[in-house]
């Protein structure tokens, strides 16, 4: 597919309306809007830039949304593109672990549910790519960055789905953790991202509930099925806790992100919230969370839990998890295998348009 070349990376390029800076009005994203200069004749560009920055800071301080065609600092734009792209990639790669079970789902009901869920993940990825494009990023370029390993996705999807219980545990724990992470992002200062998150969160609730229901059904089954659920829980618990990212003291960007209100809680806060939510769910289900140090701490009013193996986290993030290569290879194969379809559709559209013009 053409248009995938390097050099079209995210940055202060022209974008499109309605969500981006330039397009019909031919203003570069990040350029000084006409209005600002016109209001203050004689004021230099530097003075205007200061005013724009103050306006940006004020908008955020008042908890208002930054919209695509607003002036924003380059660092904010870059950070947002990276955050949204990484989230979009996670949704797209996230189709694979569960997608593996679509053909082997144990009933038509489960297969229909799983198909709908995997479709939702695709949809979430597309909402998010759409939001990233409002910042001047190019969708084809983002895909290229994903399949060449230049942008990351959540490390959780580099683990294999060994049994059908994994489908349930992913819904319960992985989507549960995602909900914890994403609900506060519905109030992200970046408007299009916040709006995408609202749509996504509504749909995630179905994901988590179908997973938990699946597990409840298995727990009512044979002892082999109950063991399957426990085994899947054992394998996914710790990676789920890692989804919240490194501990606060090792998360240098958190402070800036909180100031920009593109992150509303620290990694450790969200992780704690997830643990507190999940323990009673595990009890209701009748599984044991694989952490001997997990216990209620009345003083803190929270559950204490054991040390996370951050070396594993780093290993998986660094490309050496059980399925990293497989996930990227599958995404690349799908993208390259679909190239002829994209080209044929474009050729057909061009032909139809040319005929219509000739007839006019």
């Amino acid at each position, binding site marked *: *597919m053409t248009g995938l070349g390097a050099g079209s990376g995210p940055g202060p390029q022209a974008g499109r309306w309605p969500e981006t800076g330039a397009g*019909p*009005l031919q203003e570069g994203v990040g350029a000084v809007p006409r*209005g600002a200069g016109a209001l203050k004749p004689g004021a230099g560009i530097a003075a205007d830039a200061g005013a724009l920055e103050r306006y940006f800071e004020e908008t955020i301080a008042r908890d208002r949304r930054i919209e695509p065609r*607003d002036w924003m600092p380059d660092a904010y734009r870059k950070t947002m593109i990276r955050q949204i792209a990484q989230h979009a990639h996670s949704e797209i790669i996230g189709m694979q672990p569960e997608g593996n079970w679509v053909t082997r789902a144990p009933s038509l009901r489960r297969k229909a549910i799983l198909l709908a869920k995997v479709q939702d993940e695709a949809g979430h990825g597309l909402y998010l790519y759409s939001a990233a494009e409002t910042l001047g990023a190019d969708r084809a370029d983002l895909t290229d960055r994903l399949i060449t390993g230049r942008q990351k996705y959540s490390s959780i999807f580099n683990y294999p789905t060994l049994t059908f219980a994994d489908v349930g545990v992913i819904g319960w724990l992985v989507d549960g953790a995602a909900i914890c992470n994403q609900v506060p992002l519905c109030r992200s200062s970046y408007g299009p991202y916040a709006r995408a998150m609202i749509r996504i969160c509504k749909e995630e609730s179905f994901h988590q509930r179908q997973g938990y229901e699946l597990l409840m059904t298995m727990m009512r089954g044979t002892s082999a099925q109950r063991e399957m659920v426990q085994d899947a829980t054992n394998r996914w618990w710790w990676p789920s806790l890692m989804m919240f990212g490194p501990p606060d003291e090792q998360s240098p960007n958190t402070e800036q992100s909180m100031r920009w209100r593109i992150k509303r809680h620290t990694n450790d806060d969200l992780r704690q919230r997830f643990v507190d939510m999940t323990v009673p769910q595990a009890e209701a289900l009748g599984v044991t969370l694989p952490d001997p140090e997990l216990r209620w701490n009345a003083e803190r009013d929270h559950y204490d839990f054991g040390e996370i193996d951050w070396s594993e986290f780093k290993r998986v993030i660094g490309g050496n998890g059980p399925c990293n290569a497989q996930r990227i290879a599958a995404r690349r194969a799908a993208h390259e295998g679909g190239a002829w379809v994209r080209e044929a559709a474009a050729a057909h559209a*061009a032909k139809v*348009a040319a005929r219509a013009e*000739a007839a006019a």
Partner: protein
Amino acid sequence: MSSGEISSTGMGTGSGMSGEPRSNWPLFEVFLRSKRGLNHVHVGSLHAADATMALHHARDLYTRRNEGVSIWVVKAADITASSPDEKDPFFAPSGDKVYRHPTFYEIPQSVPHI
């Protein structure tokens, strides 16, 4: 990339006759009427080779749970927008016309139904 390159993807404008069509599809903005009686509202964007495909993609992407009864798709390049800055003088003409609002007029409380 630029908006021009994307929006001119193998579409019309005469050049489609000779030049090779780009495989990069143009961007469409999607508007949804969620139920009868309401306006179409912008919900997002997607890429498609042409308007018909954009409609199908919009249905698959934005109405998986009966969120809409009608969809509009518009090529992003065909939209003209005002500047978003609230302080933009573009909107200044309405700023000082308080008499356009009903609350501008004082009517005694004893007068009913007004």
